[in-house]
């Protein structure tokens, strides 16, 4: 029982939870404003991780400096995806159900393409960097610098995003779009602009999560999918458009995963993640919108 209550585990759970919260926040923006089921979300995380890896191993550039670049790059990809594929798709598909199903298949195709392009370009073998691995001790808990950085930056960005969404005009417009697209357009929200900004922001957060992860995790072209799954769990548990709920759900998932592994075995990690995912969907079969769709 001692190990279960140790600060060490608590710290690990907080770190992984913060990353889940960050990726979930990105997916929440994309799904909420456009009803696009971005199953390639985790692949954007992967691309961010590779950017940090190459900048570090080729140019000795710190992953922390790579982070803003990854955000910009991922945001650019988001803009491309919107202009190239999804603007037309969103505007010509009035039925939300159809749009969701189509976007899922489209993103699935895109995901396979990205993963295999990355595998061709970077080889499928996993890689890792060692950065900021100085150990700090605090109240009997050993923390490496990189994990502290992940936790600090993720929490900071989550809080900043939540504040921006709550108090800025853009934030209000995004929330309006999440609640009702037609009504938002009627009251003067520039739907296209808000959608493209949300997609760029969502992708950017995923890219950021990738650069942070590159400091502690092994990276490979196929590392992304668990993060997509985690992000889906986060928005289903936290509630669509409920950013605070999503952030809490991210931490909760981190706790379930870390403590689940401690209580069973390290092999059980994927079983726990997918088990939670399946369980959450079975308990909320009406989907991410919860009961709201019935009233529509």
């Amino acid at each position: 029982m001692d190990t279960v209550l140790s600060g060490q585990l608590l710290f690990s759970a907080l770190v992984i939870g913060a990353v889940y919260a960050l990726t979930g926040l990105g997916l929440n923006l994309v799904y909420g404003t456009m009803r696009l089921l971005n199953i390639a979300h985790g692949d954007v995380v992967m691309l961010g991780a590779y950017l940090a890896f190459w900048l570090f191993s080729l140019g000795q550039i710190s992953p922390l400096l790579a982070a803003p670049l990854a955000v910009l790059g991922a945001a650019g990809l988001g803009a491309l995806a919107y202009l190239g594929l999804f603007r037309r798709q969103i505007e010509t598909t009035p039925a939300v159900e159809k749009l969701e199903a189509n976007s899922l298949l489209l993103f699935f195709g895109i995901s396979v393409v990205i993963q295999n392009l990355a595998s061709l370009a970077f080889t499928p073998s996993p890689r890792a960097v060692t950065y900021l691995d100085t150990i700090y001790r605090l109240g009997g808990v050993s923390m490496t610098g990189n994990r502290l950085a992940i936790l600090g930056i993720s929490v900071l960005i989550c809080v900043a995003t939540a504040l921006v969404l709550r108090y800025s005009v853009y934030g209000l417009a995004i929330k309006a779009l999440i609640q009702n697209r037609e009504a938002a357009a009627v009251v003067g929200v520039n739907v296209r602009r808000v959608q493209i900004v949300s997609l760029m922001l969502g992708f950017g957060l995923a890219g950021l999560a990738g650069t942070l992860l590159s400091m502690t995790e092994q990276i490979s072209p196929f590392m992304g999918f668990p993060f997509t799954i985690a992000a889906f769990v986060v928005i289903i548990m936290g509630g669509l458009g409920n950013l605070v709920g999503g952030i809490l759900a991210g931490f909760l998932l981190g706790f379930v995963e870390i403590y689940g592994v401690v209580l069973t075995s390290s092999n059980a990690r994927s079983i726990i993640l997918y088990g939670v995912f399946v369980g959450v969907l079975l308990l909320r079969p009406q989907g991410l919108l919860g009961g709201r769709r019935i009233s529509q």
Partner: protein
Amino acid sequence: MKAAFWVIGAGLAGAGAAGLPWLIGDYYLTVALNLAMWIALAQSWTILSGMAGYISLGHVVFYGLGAYCVVVTWQAVPLFVAIPLGGLVAGIFAAVIGAPVLRVRGPYFVILTFGIAELVKYIVINIEASSGQASRLLFGTPSVTDLYLIMLALAAAATGLAWTVRRSRLGSGLVAIREDEEAAQTFGVPVTRFKVYAFILAAVIPGMAGGTFVLRSTYFETTQVFDPVISFSIVTMAIIGGSDDARGPLLGATFLVVLSELLWSTLPQLYLIVLGTLLVVFVLFLPGGLVGLLGPNRHRLVR
């Protein structure tokens, strides 16, 4: 009259296909085995996902369970028991998870099926790891010819099953569910029961196909028989071919098997890149698939 034409045609094609092992070499026989397997998988998939519109992105779970079943019982029970047992296990699994899983609709059903397939994969990996084996060796597997003939029978059975279901009460009910589930229920379609039946019917043959194809190689690795690429290929085949017609999966499977023969051995990543791109293009521009392209023209000729 037209149906008789198709039945005779299919009979002739079947007889020709069964004679293949004595006409062509081992390489082409392996290609034919692949083709028969993908036809069996894609036709089965359409029973749930084409007719009822519940797109399964985790069909590999049935394939993998069937394969695992045959591997575990290998040399303990004869093959003609083991392969149907694989189908039975897949069918039972579908029956057990069917009712709760099929309550989940639309895109959530799609990602749920994917999640279930991954979950089962990791559970089987853990079971295998706890028994101390990373992979198993299979001794005395049947010849390619035998496997091909079994697979051909499965492909024919799957095509026949899809054809029969499509023309049955069950099939009409499933199409009604796809068009509007609430309306179907109002008109008295036993929605849940039909969906579960379709799920089971769509699962059994993939279970047997997995059990057969796993004997193609002499070792068994869990990640290979539960590879999500298999689910992805099935969906892409059905979408490229079109799943509203028994010819759709035939076309889609043939197209992708040829493509895979050209690319897989040299550049597997390129094959998957092409597959992903095709999926995007067909969803965007040709939602009816290749058969959808054929459809209107055929009607015009008839007129």
